[in-house]
């Protein structure tokens, strides 16, 4: 069991992968160090959201994911 980080939409291209796994507790600072600098720069932008366990975080810097949790990195959306 580990934390699964998912790269959605354009962040997938930027990360060069669909997802990655990290062991143990994942907080905001560790997330920024775990992903590539390009992705980290995107995460710092207000328009990029983070979901943990299927819920969008009101304050993404309060991220606290444990083993078994899924963390989704959500760039600006576009549908229809």
């Amino acid at each position, binding site marked *: 069991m580990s934390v699964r980080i998912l790269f959605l*939409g*354009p962040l997938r291209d930027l990360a060069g992968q669909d997802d990655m796994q990290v062991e143990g507790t994942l907080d905001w600072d560790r997330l920024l160090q775990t992903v590539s600098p390009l992705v980290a720069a995107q995460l710092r932008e207000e328009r990029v959201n983070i*979901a943990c366990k299927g819920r*969008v975080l009101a304050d993404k810097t309060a991220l606290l994911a444990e083993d078994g949790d899924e963390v*989704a990195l959500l760039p600006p*959306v*576009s*549908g*229809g």
Partner: protein
Amino acid sequence: MSIGEALAAFNASYPDAGGTASFVGKVRSDNDVKALELTHYEPLTLPGMEELAQAASEKFGLAGVLAWHRVGVMTPGQPIVLVAAAAAHRREAFDAVDFLMDHLKSASWFWKRERRGDGWHWIEPRDQDRRDLARWK
């Protein structure tokens, strides 16, 4: 189920509503678009659409609401999205479809990219889409 069948079934489901408004959005072929890919994140996307449909239903007093959105790769002419709203009067039905489309376009968990002659390009909502969405706030 085709779009025509879905709309026919939807209409038949709400015989007492005065009217049904609907919208079908399709892949356009302008800007040299060869294909469109829509991706989603199901743990957020589906509950988000359900909440959106519920919000529209309450806001406009609908008898019924339908919201379909495809994911995957589509080619020009193929449908992407279908929404329909049944209400007592046409104004509420129109406004609900308008509301649903504005939110699906720029406030639902979908990501869209299009393939042109020179490769894939991610699409963000147009300024017009953002202004349309802001009308409901």
